[in-house]
């Protein structure tokens, strides 16, 4: 395969995401400008200008009309997907680490860091209401119980919110009351990224403790464990095959002391059920920070610390491959 290299960022990529139909790819980085790309040919459709700091997270609603970004410049912004116009800005007390649209696209949530004496906070807004209205729900995460949330997702039927924390905890929060429903702690280090399967039944977490784990989304039962020898920054599940991609690599700070060839910056493919690694794709010259499968399962993208997004279209060899057992 010949990947397309998308060179729209000046700094390390923090997150990439496809829209529901898979024709657009959104990328955010530690520079201030989120980008949107056509997946068909890697052409840049546009960029969303307005942030003044690292953008940690991006999400697009189901009909690809609005885009939500969360940034370290103490704000979360809502954009018109097709024109790049900023529709609303929510100011926060500390930097926004993750943000998501609900399944219906009417609600949004974002989580903020523990910073400058402010406790981490999870906020939920209804975007149908005027921009300056009060949050539908906003509560502080008790840092005596668990540390700050690093990533968040909406649970089934908008009943609960799933968060992954700095200390490896996974938690469910009631979206009516802000109450902690239950939490599990299988990871020993921070959870860098979480993704739901295409049917929203299972949840894949990627952690700095060098593993990725598969959970049942509704109960947080641990199902599978994928072990590697390096921190995992992001993990994605194939929508069509029982495959999992893990992206990672050494810490950014250790990169300069290692040669690229031994750098282990390749995307690693595991079998979902057998937890067995069966393939690797190299290409990045820094750790991979975010991976995402195209919704049709025929291509995937990865964004790295090197500032590039690489879009890979799978060869026939990938589809022909069967794991021998």
């Amino acid at each position, binding site marked *: *395969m010949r990947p*397309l290299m998308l060179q729209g960022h000046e700094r390390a990529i923090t997150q990439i995401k496809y829209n529901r139909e898979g024709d657009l790819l959104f990328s955010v980085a530690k520079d201030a400008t989120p980008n949107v790309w056509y997946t068909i*040919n*890697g*052409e840049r459709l546009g960029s969303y200008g307005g942030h003044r700091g690292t953008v940690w997270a991006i999400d697009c609603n189901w009909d690809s009309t609005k885009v939500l970004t969360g940034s370290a410049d103490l704000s979360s912004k809502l954009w018109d997907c097709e024109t*790049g116009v900023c529709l609303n800005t929510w100011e926060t007390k500390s930097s926004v680490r993750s943000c998501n649209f609900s399944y219906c696209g009417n609600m949004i949530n974002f989580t903020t860091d523990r910073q400058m004496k402010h406790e981490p906070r999870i906020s939920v807004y209804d975007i149908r209401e005027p921009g300056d209205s009060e949050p539908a729900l906003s509560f502080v995460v008790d840092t005596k119980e668990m540390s700050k949330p690093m990533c968040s997702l909406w649970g089934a039927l908008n009943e609960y919110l799933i968060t992954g924390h700095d200390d490896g905890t996974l938690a469910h929060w009631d979206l009516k009351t802000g109450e902690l429903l239950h939490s599990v702690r299988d990871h020993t280090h921070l959870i860098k990224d979480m993704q739901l399967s295409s049917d929203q039944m299972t949840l894949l977490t990627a952690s700095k403790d060098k593993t990725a784990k598969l959970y049942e989304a509704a109960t947080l039962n641990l199902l599978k464990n994928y072990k590697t020898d390096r921190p995992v920054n992001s993990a994605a599940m194939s929508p069509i095959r029982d495959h999992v991609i893990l992206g990672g690599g050494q810490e950014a700070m250790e990169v300069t002391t290692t040669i690229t060839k031994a750098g282990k910056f390749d995307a690693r493919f595991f079998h979902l059920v057998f937890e067995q690694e069966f393939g690797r794709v190299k290409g990045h010259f820094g750790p991979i920070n975010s991976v995402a499968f195209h919704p049709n399962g025929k291509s995937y993208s990865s964004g790295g610390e090197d500032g590039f997004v690489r879009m890979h279209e799978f060869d026939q*060899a990938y589809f*022909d491959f069967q794991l021998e*057992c």
Partner: protein
Amino acid sequence: MPSEDKPIAWAAYAAENEKTSWADQVEEEETGGMDFPPSSEKVIGDIKTVIDYKLNKDDKKVKVIRKYKLEVKKTSKSVARRKLLKKFGLSKDDPSGPNKATTIISEEVMMQFMSNKEEELLQDQDDPTLSKFKHQLQYYMFFKNFKGTARDPSTEEPKKEEPEENAGAQSGAPGKYIPPSLRAGGSAAGSSMPSRGNRDEQATIRVTNLSEETKEPDLQELFKPFGPIQRIYLAKDKHTQQSKGFAFINFHNREDAAKAIKSVCGFGYDHLILNVEWAKPSTTN
């Protein structure tokens, strides 16, 4: 005149050439003074041919012929509508089609598949005293997977080597670690990373006189009985995807490769008689 031929799948969108990007203009200025025939475009059926002229590294005029395959893709209405959106933000002034400054077609990468055996080998060793060996073995496996990227041209393959010797090193008993310096392939003293390009090539065979209809799975079937295969490369025509009549097969063990040569050479396959021999070490890098 040398010519390049680059079929690119997504070129359908690179088609419109209303405005040239600034990168082109810079190039034009650099080559200023020379008279180049204007670039031309022709569309015949679903093949679009673009002919450009430019200076190459040695200051020679080169004619560059690019062939694009035009594809029509059916999508949902909303996707089709979005494809026609006006660009905004930093891409506001870009012409339609990918901008060379932001979208680059990178080099070919292959997905490297790993066989079961390698994994088991690693997992069998849970003894803590062996963890160091395990680590080194992991490295060894890892480097083994780096095919062709870092080939050391100075270490040519020693032709006289006994095939059995090398095979023994590769399939050595799981618990037994053989330091690189003692491995058969690494006897060329001095180099810290002993000829890993060679190791791959040593178990590689070249199959010629294949019929055009041959597919990779056919080869897999044909050569599987001889031992675990690392990689199969079947040369194919860019446009028709038909076999060009030769293939390379990397075995894990040289022994197996030797067996395969002995048995398949002269074997009738698809009305043709196969010719199988050791692959010559590539001299291109």
